[in-house]
């Protein structure tokens, strides 16, 4: 995914997310296994894969309700975890200005960390990029299909997947790789360092708020540090 091309083809979208699917698949299995073992309605947990379609928040809902937590807490936690979608939406919006309402809805439904990141990585500048839609839908549908299949599979297979494989580590590994590829210049590096360490310092905040606090601090640090490197 290092080469930036002027063309937007769905096959490129699929092939760019293919390696990411290596980590989405175990994540999907883990969600399925967790949901099957939890004391929650299995059908609702399964349906969350296409109703919500955002892994971390789905796991949070299952874990909170399984632990006897209030429904409102589960809902608020899921919304806070997914609040980063606001930021992705703000960036993706630049690519979809002249598309129809229906297309915008489809783009929004398929918006995930990975689909956003591969698209913004391959087409860094929306002003010069062609319509990114074929590429984006290739990536987005590849992720969507993988998520539906693996979460279902995880629920069916249940405890047959041994925890000693540490498959859950595939998730931070993927984000590590995406992070490395997302740092394109010095202000970007500053944004990452500040964002990461503020999030670590704030990790004890409830509802995963540390993520948002860190992300906002990182963006601010990136903008401020632009002046130093000029």
């Amino acid at each position: 995914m290092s080469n930036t091309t002027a063309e937007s083809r769905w096959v490129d979208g699929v092939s760019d997310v293919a390696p990411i699917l290596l980590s989405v698949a175990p994540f999907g299995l883990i969600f399925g296994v967790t949901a099957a073992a939890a004391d929650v309605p299995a059908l609702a947990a399964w349906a969350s894969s296409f109703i919500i379609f955002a892994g971390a928040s789905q796991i949070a809902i299952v874990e909170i309700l399984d632990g006897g937590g209030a429904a409102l807490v589960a809902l608020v936690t899921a919304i806070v975890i997914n609040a980063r979608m606001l930021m992705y939406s703000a960036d993706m919006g630049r690519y979809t200005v002249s598309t129809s309402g229906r297309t915008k809805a489809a783009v929004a439904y398929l918006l995930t960390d990975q689909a956003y990141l591969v698209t913004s990585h391959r087409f860094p500048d929306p002003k010069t990029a062609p319509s990114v839609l074929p590429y984006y839908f290739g990536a987005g549908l590849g992720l969507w299909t993988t998520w539906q299949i693996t979460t279902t599979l995880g629920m069916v297979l249940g405890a047959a997947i041994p925890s000693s494989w540490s498959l859950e580590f595939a998730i931070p590994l993927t984000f590590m790789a995406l992070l490395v590829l997302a740092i394109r210049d010095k202000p970007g590096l500053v944004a990452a360092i500040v964002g990461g360490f503020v999030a670590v310092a704030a990790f004890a905040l409830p509802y995963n708020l540390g993520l948002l606090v860190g992300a906002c601090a990182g963006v601010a640090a990136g903008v401020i540090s632009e002046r130093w490197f000029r």
Partner: protein
Amino acid sequence: MWTVVILAGIATFAMRLSFIALFGRVSVPPSVERALKYIAPSVLAAITLPALLTPDNAFDAWNFYVPAAILGGLAAWKTRSIGAAIVVGLPSLWLLQWLFG
């Protein structure tokens, strides 16, 4: 559970659609557009570092995730590929767990 799933689904979709729907109707100031560039590195670092440094919800910089993730990150940086991070990082973790676990 159903209520939570459906409401969270609606809220998540609304957040995903928010700015995608707004763009083109309102103009975005250049300063905001400049800041958008730093979303990806900031969010990714804010997801990755706590995941590595606070396993089991407690700060612990000396766990096997850290060296395995550094190796995986180096592999991704060298090859510009995400798959390389998995192919290098996951076996590194297994090796560390097997050697010292």
